[in-house]
């Protein structure tokens, strides 16, 4: 398998505070990796470093020059119709047909000339997904993209993203707080703690006998102890 991105000995400080220290990571092409961790553990910092949005203080990142990113907020331009939002930064004559096709793929066929303000939260996030995938990225970075959606919409989005990743086969890094979300869509789950990767779980292997045991383990890693387990 070829790597979508390889990170070696990554280091990132804010002033005196070390946020990431000696982090190694490899994500294969077509692999869906979820990253769990408590707030402030450095997982968003890692994602922003991979996206090229923040500088790093040491180590190496070998990956595509420009990975695609979906943020927690949809971040659509309110003054641009949907297809222009999706095609942002693509300056070929095929930009519009490609954008229209990408919108169709996320279930928004025929909405290419609509304004972002006419969309629901879930629909807006679908457009953000289309904007990321229309570039056929080798690496797709998802920064808690479903956190602001209601539970039912989130489940639909999980199915959609799994489907899209299976078809386009980018390497994916999903940063999330949600253990169930990670189990539902990832191939591999990493737990980040104090600037390093503290644990790694292969989802298929761990959930052969049901997902409850993995869920308990992951919650334990994150410092949550369930009452019935503690007893």
């Amino acid at each position, binding site marked *: 398998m070829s790597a979508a991105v390889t990170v070696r000995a990554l280091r990132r400080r804010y002033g005196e505070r070390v946020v990431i220290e000696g982090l190694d990571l490899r994500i294969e092409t077509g692999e869906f990796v979820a990253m769990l961790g408590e707030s402030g553990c450095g997982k968003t910092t890692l994602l922003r470093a991979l*996206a*090229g*949005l923040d500088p790093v203080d040491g180590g190496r990142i070998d990956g595509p020059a*420009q*990975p*695609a*990113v979906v*943020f927690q*907020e949809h*971040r659509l*331009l*309110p*003054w*641009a119709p949907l297809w*222009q939002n999706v095609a*942002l*930064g693509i*300056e070929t004559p095929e930009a519009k047909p490609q954008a229209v096709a990408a919108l169709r793929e996320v279930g928004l066929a025929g909405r290419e000339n609509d*304004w*972002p*303000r006419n969309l629901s939260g879930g629909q807006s996030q679908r457009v953000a997904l289309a*904007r990321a995938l229309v*570039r056929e990225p080798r690496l797709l970075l998802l920064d808690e993209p479903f956190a602001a959606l209601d539970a039912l919409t989130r489940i639909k989005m999980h199915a959609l993203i799994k489907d899209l990743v299976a078809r386009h086969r980018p390497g994916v890094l999903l940063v999330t707080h949600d253990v169930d979300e990670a189990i539902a869509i990832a191939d591999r789950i990493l737990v980040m703690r104090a600037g390093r990767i503290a644990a790694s779980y292969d989802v298929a292997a761990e959930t052969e006998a049901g997902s409850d045991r993995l869920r308990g383990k992951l919650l334990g890693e994150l410092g949550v102890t369930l009452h019935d387990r503690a007893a």
Partner: protein
Amino acid sequence: MAIDLSTRAPRTVPSGYRAGHLARGPRSWSARELLVLSWLAPLLFALAWEAVCRFGGMNEQVMPAPSAVLATAWTLVKDGSLFVHLGYSLLRAATGFLIGGGIGFGLGLIVGFSRLAEALLDRSIQMIRAIPFLALLPLVIVWFGVDEAGKIFLVSLGVLFPIYINTVLGIRQVDPKLLEVAKVTGLSLRGRITKIILPGAMPSILTGVRYALAVAWLALVIAETIATTKGIGFLAMDAREFLQTNVIVLTIVIYAAIGVIADGIARALERRLLAWHPNYAREERR
């Protein structure tokens, strides 16, 4: 009036009012009827004014009747002089607006984009802005004499600052999160400016344009009272010499009409350029 009233119908009658009327029984008003009614008061006022002048013994040197003003307008239209004066005034306003607006917008762009330019320029611009620009009138006459240049300078100066300030403000208020999107989508610098920064700054810039239009008129009224031989202001000054009150009133009406038209243009610009914006999305009467 050739306006499609049907699109406006659901908005002009707020449901609360309509409910109140229905409760009492009589009827709800259509948009067309309300539009006609809205012109009723000004019309009645003009009629009352006319009546006072004709039968109330009002001295026409103090306040001429609307019919007299209209007759004067017609005379000036027939000999073509009204268009000459109007043309001069509009040309001065437009030239001054383009020069002052252009400089204000240009400076606003530079200062908005560059902290270095802000450090170098902004304080000086703010200091000049603190001067009430009409206070420069005597100096302008010394510098430029009483020619066109001085008048255009005054209009430009008045227009420059509102456009400058609102351009800088608009650019600075663009959401940094959208600029991150520009980065991760590999948008070029040109694309960043034309697709994110300028559209994001547009509501603020158009507020500046609207304000600047009002200032341009004010500057023009003052500038045209300095020795001139052409322009609406000259008409007014000349009429004052000969106590032609009807001409004076006519010039005031013309200034008012042009102000209304300028505001209409600004609104049309907002509706067109801010079609995406929820506040400007539908036709609104403010």
